């Protein structure tokens, strides 16, 4: 997997993470959270991750977000995450 096997060799001192959320929009087990809920959960998770490394330190650094677009013919599946 390039994210964990190759990227850390080329780019030093970054913290590489994946972020996943339940994006099922149809079906019996479709996600209950809306897009705004996913946004809040993501920010909260990043804050928790930073506070676990730098305790009591005001962290101010960049976040590089890499996302994809899932598009399967129907606009129902069209999600942009940036």
């Amino acid at each position: 997997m390039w994210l964990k096997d190759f990227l850390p060799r080329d780019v030093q001192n970054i913290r590489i993470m994946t972020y996943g959320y339940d994006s099922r929009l149809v079906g019996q087990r479709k996600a209950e959270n809306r897009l705004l809920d996913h946004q809040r959960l993501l920010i909260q998770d990043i804050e928790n991750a930073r506070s676990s490394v730098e305790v009591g330190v005001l962290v101010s650094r960049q976040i590089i977000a890499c996302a994809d677009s899932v598009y399967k013919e129907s606009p129902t599946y069209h999600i942009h995450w940036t």
Partner: protein
Amino acid sequence: MMAQVALLAGVSVCVVGLSLACTKYMGFPLTLSGQTAPAGSQGGTSLSTQLDQATDPNSGPREGKCKQLIDTSEPLGSSKPVNNTESDIHSVDTSEPQTNDPIHSVDTGEPQSKDLIHSVDTSKLQSNDPTSSSLRPKCFRISGLPSSWSEIHLFDALHEIDQSLTRHNYRPSLYPSCYGSTQTALLNLDPCTVYLQSRNHFPIPKLASRTADVLTIDSDFYNLTPLNILTGEVVAELVVRPLETSWRC
């Protein structure tokens, strides 16, 4: 009186002569009704005796007739099916004693069919083999590992709940968790085991993990998952929202 004795003697001589003639030139003995051929005689209609005669190069004029009898017998067949039988026995079960004796070849006909059935059953069992290639690879995330754990500790805990897990398909990667002081492991199983193939999210029992911490194994990868070990000062966070499972390969 003398005439009766002479008549009986003549009749006896005729009967014996006729019997010998039938045995020698016609290939079968002339026996009285209800009698069987004596043991060791060349006559009789027993199948094994006919086969012996067919393969005996010194069988004389009876050879052609006996071969004709064998050809009409389907289990015995001609020389070609007999050769096929021997070759099939070679391919199916080499533990069977190989012999050129036609009688043994005929006797092994039924076990041969059993061996073929057995081979079919074996192939069916192999299709249900948990380690067969029909199982797709699958990646799991195991959260809550104690910081002192290594790959061996994790293998022991997973092996408690899934005995089919072997070190052959066990390739984990351990990283410090995004939150707290625990570790997170990524485990790519190729091929995946039957037990874990249909499971997406479940806790590992404490009895299996032998730790007070709750270990959770999942394959949905919700929330943050670490992918590297921090060695120095962090200058940036790279957060990737991958396209389904493509990033795990």
